[in-house]
C-alpha cells in the first residue's frame, strides 16, 4: 500500500520493490497454504535430514550406517537440519513450479536453472565427509604421473584440507543453497505465464501485448488482483 505522497516522491524503483515484495509474500503464502506443497516440504525434509544425518558423519566410520548417529554433535545436527530444510524448500519450489506452470512456459526454465545450483551446494556439502579418508582422493591423485612420495604428500594435503576446512565448506554450501532457494523463489515470482490461463490466448508473451516483454506474475497480479490470480494458478 503506497500513499499519494509516496507515489509523488518515491522513485519508480522503490514502488517496484514494494510490489515485488508483495509478490514474493503472496507466492510464499500460496506455497505454504498448498497442502501438497506442505507434504512435499515435510517429506523432502525428513528424507534429506535422514540422509544428511548419515552422510555428514560418514568420515568417522566410512560406512553408510545408523552407527554414524553417535558422531552427530551439535555442529552436525545444525548442518543436518539446515541442509534438510534448504533442500526441502528447493524441492518444494520446483514441484510447485512444475505443478503450477504449464508445459513450455518459462516456469520450467525456473526449475531447470535452480536445480544445478542447489545440486552443486548439496554435493559440496558432502565433500568433506566423502573425500576425507576415503579412497576417492588417493585414487584421483594416483592418476597423476608423479612419484610415490609426491603422491602420498599430495593425498595427505588434500585430505587434511577437507578435514580442517569442513566447517567453512559446509557453511559455504549452506549459503549457496540459501541463495539458490531465494533465486528460485525470485524466478518463480517473476516468471511469465505461470499458468496457461495467465497468458493472452495466442501469445506466449503475455497480456501486455508486447512480444518482447513477457507478462510477469507481478503484472498478472497488478491487472487481475491477487484473488483472481490465485484462482488462475490453482
Amino acid at each position, binding site marked *: 500500500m503506497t500513499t499519494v505522497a509516496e507515489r509523488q516522491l518515491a522513485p519508480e524503483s522503490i514502488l517496484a520493490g514494494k510490489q515485488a515484495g508483495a509478490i514474493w509474500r503472496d507466492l510464499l503464502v500460496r506455497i505454504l497454504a498448498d497442502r501438497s506443497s506442505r507434504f512435499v516440504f515435510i517429506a523432502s525434509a525428513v528424507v534429506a535430514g535422514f540422509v544428511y544425518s548419515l552422510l555428514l558423519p560418514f568420515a568417522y566410520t566410512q560406512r553408510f550406517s545408523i552407527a554414524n548417529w553417535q558422531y552427530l554433535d551439535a555442529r552436525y545436527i545444525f548442518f543436518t537440519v539446515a541442509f534438510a530444510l534448504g533442500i526441502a524448500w528447493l524441492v518444494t519450489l520446483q514441484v510447485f513450479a512444475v505443478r503450477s506452470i504449464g508445459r513450455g512456459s518459462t516456469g520450467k526454465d525456473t526449475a531447470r536453472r535452480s536445480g544445478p545450483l542447489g545440486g552443486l551446494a548439496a554435493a559440496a556439502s558432502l565433500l568433506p565427509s566423502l573425500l576425507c579418508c576415503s579412497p576417492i582422493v588417493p585414487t584421483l591423485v594416483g592418476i597423476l604421473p608423479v612419484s610415490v*612420495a609426491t603422491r602420498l604428500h599430495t593425498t595427505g594435503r588434500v*585430505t587434511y584440507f577437507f578435514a580442517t576446512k569442513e566447517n567453512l565448506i559446509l557453511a559455504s554450501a549452506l549459503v549457496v543453497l540459501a541463495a539458490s532457494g531465494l533465486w528460485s523463489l525470485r524466478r518463480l515470482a517473476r516468471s511469465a505465464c505461470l499458468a496457461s490461463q495467465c497468458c493472452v490466448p495466442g501469445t506466449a508473451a503475455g497480456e501486455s501485448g508486447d512480444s518482447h516483454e513477457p507478462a510477469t506474475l507481478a503484472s498478472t497480479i497488478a491487472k487481475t488482483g491477487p484473488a483472481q490470480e490465485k484462482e488462475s494458478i490453482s
Partner: protein
Amino acid sequence: MFSGSGDSVTLLNGSKVTLSALKGSGPALVWFVADGCASCASSVPVIASHLSDFSSHGVQVLAIGMYGFFAPGSQGLGELANFAQQAESGISLSNPAWNWGMSSESLTSAYDPQGVPDAYFLLDSSGHVAYQDSVPVSSIDALMAHVKELEHS
C-alpha cells in the same frame, strides 16, 4: 611381506624399529593413521579398548603415522602424539601393548601404495598378512575374530 632396512618405523621416543625385526616375535597389527583422518581418530579409542585382547592373544599393535600425512622428522612425531591425544583424551601412549611411530616412505608405499588412511594389516608370526581391512571402528569385530583365528592357526 616386507623385509629390508626400508621398512623402518621411528617410534615416539625416537628409536627405530623394522617390521622385519618383528618376525618371530609374534603376530602384529600394523595400522596406518593420518592427521585429519576422522575415522582414524574415532578408531583410536576402539583399538585402545581392545589392547588387553590383543595382548592376551600375543598381538603387538603398531599404530603408524602414514608417510606424507605428517610433517617429517621430530615435528611429525609431535603431530602424531597430538593426534592420538586428541582422538582420546587421557590415552596412554606408553602402554606396552601398542607402539606409536612414523612410517618411512618405503613402508607406507609397500603396505598402502595408494595412500588410503586407516588401513590395517594383521601379520602372523612369520610376517605374512593374515587379514587386512580398514577403519577399525567399523570392522573391529571382524578384526578380533581374525585375531582369535590367528592363535589357532
